[in-house]
């Protein structure tokens, strides 16, 4: 698959300017009165792996279903690949795995894909290719009912690749996979993004999101409460300085970085500093007669950020 490079993000090597999914004020209120999704704004760009994070019942799957036309929004607007959700012209360029893989239990894995290939209008030869990509070629003749959870998940991912999609919507794709399978899946998702496809990925595996996603949206209680790159979400890393005497170290650091960039916590300093200036700080501390015993970067993990954000929000959906 070839795509033109529109705008390259530093260190990522992917274009990120052409919107593939655009949702504005997307809202779903069920007849029961439950507000599952509340005015969600979302944009996923070509060549981007977008992580959709949120606790159970936050509205991730409902949002994905609306993008695919499975559920009608109560209000708001959505275009997917320039088409309204569920339009055949859009669906022909989308690969989707929503919640648990839904297949025909009496059919083999291969026949399940043959059925979907017929619906999608792609040749049967493509079935063998995607079975190979998903690592299912050896068990393709087994009926779906006999598959393990991980194999079912692999078949689901294989089905999303049948039509060589421009957009993949993957809802918890690593559910049920063993560690090797999860690593395979991460590599596959990263590769799909690198090939210029857009990937919308929901996951509870925060490490997975950190590794493969360019941008992350955090949804809680049906609302997107944060959206940024993983690095931005985690915030600027702090430099932990352990030195004696600490008061002299604090003065020297403040003289170099400014008062606001230096905080004393316990028996260490925490400094907001450009990584390129760490050596300069070290020299300043030494010149000030301080014994430096430890200099280390301290980043918040995505999990810490996620828990901090989502525990402040009270989900209102089941």
């Amino acid at each position: 698959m070839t795509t033109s490079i529109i705008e390259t993000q530093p260190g990522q090597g992917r274009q990120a300017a052409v919107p593939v999914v655009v949702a504005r004020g997307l809202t779903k209120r069920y007849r029961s009165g439950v507000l599952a999704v509340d005015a969600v704004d979302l944009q996923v760009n070509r060549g981007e792996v977008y992580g959709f994070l949120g606790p159970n019942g936050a509205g991730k799957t409902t949002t994905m279903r609306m993008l695919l036309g499975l559920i009608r929004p109560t209000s708001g607007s959505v275009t997917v690949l320039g088409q309204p959700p569920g339009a055949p012209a859009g669906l022909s360029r989308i690969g989707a795995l929503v919640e648990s893989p839904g297949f025909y239990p009496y059919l083999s894995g291969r026949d399940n894909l043959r059925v979907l290939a017929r619906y999608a209008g792609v040749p049967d030869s493509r079935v063998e290719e995607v079975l190979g990509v998903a690592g299912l070629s050896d068990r393709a003749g087994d009926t779906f009912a006999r598959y393990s959870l991980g194999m079912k998940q692999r078949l689901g991912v294989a089905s999303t690749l049948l039509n060589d999609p421009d957009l993949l919507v993957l809802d918890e794709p690593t559910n049920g996979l063993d560690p090797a399978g999860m690593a395979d899946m991460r590599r596959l998702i990263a590769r799909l993004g690198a090939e210029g496809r857009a990937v919308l990925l929901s996951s509870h595996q925060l490490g997975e999101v950190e590794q493969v996603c360019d941008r992350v949206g955090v949804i809680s209680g049906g609302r997107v409460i944060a959206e940024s790159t993983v690095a931005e979400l985690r915030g600027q890393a702090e430099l932990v300085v352990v030195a004696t005497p600490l008061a002299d170290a604090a003065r020297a650091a403040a003289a170099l970085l400014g008062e606001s960039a230096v905080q004393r916590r316990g028996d260490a300093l925490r400094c907001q500093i450009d990584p390129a200036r760490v050596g300069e700080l070290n020299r300043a501390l030494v010149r000030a007669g301080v014994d430096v015993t430890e200099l280390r970067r301290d980043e918040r993990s995505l999990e810490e950020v996620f828990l901090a954000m989502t525990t402040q929000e009270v989900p209102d959906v089941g």
Partner: protein
Amino acid sequence: MLASVRAELLKLRKRPAVWVLGGVWLAMLLTFGYLLPYFSSPDSTVGPGASPLAELLPGNLVANTVGGYALFGGALVMILGALVAGSEYGWGSLKTVLTQRPGRLAVFGGTLAALGAILLAVVLVSFAVSAGASATLAAAEGLPIQWPPVADLVQGIAAGWLVLGMWCLFGLLLGTLTRGTALAIGLGLVWALVVENLIRASANALEWLDAVQRVLPGVNAGSVVAALGARGEGDGDGTPGVAAIVSGTQGALTVTALLVVFAAAAAVLVQRRDVL
């Protein structure tokens, strides 16, 4: 829509339930349409009974084949329709299918067309099996084999297809409505085997109920096959569900209308409802 038809045919062809239901129908047709009547026929060389042997011979092929469609065959294909629609929800495969290229109505249209093809095949095989059975009995009795006119055969095949199609779409609608198989099949069987019989039994006493029964699926299906010569409930050992309550033409028109209504209602549900 052709892609959807091909996909649906692949699913149906490989689905064991389709073959089981088809096998059960053919077994019932042979057993209750030929073997038991033959062995109980006073005219046969095998044993005494009440059914005239002439009704089992090739000349009566159309009436003897379509007689069971009104109730027994209808119930079986109603189960088929409920299974086809309902299991898509139960397995979660509908969401998988609807995220492929075809739109919802194209997928639904493919299902209808594929079911139509399967039902036509069932009708044709039924006629072939009946023809084989009747010819065998005629040969066993040393009687001449006289087939019905081609026009009668075509009419019988068309009527059988229509009746089975209506019942199948009734099941399809129930499966879609209930988003499952068990409740749909239960409701369908209760309707076909119990509710319609109760209404018919009470229709003589209540004039307005007589008007109601004239638009019921089973009553009209039974009238269609009765018009083709099938022995009805009033004929002693006639086939249950077969009775000329309305004319054959009116029955065929009503069955056609019901078929369209069932298909349209199911299509609206498929098109408009959220797929959870």
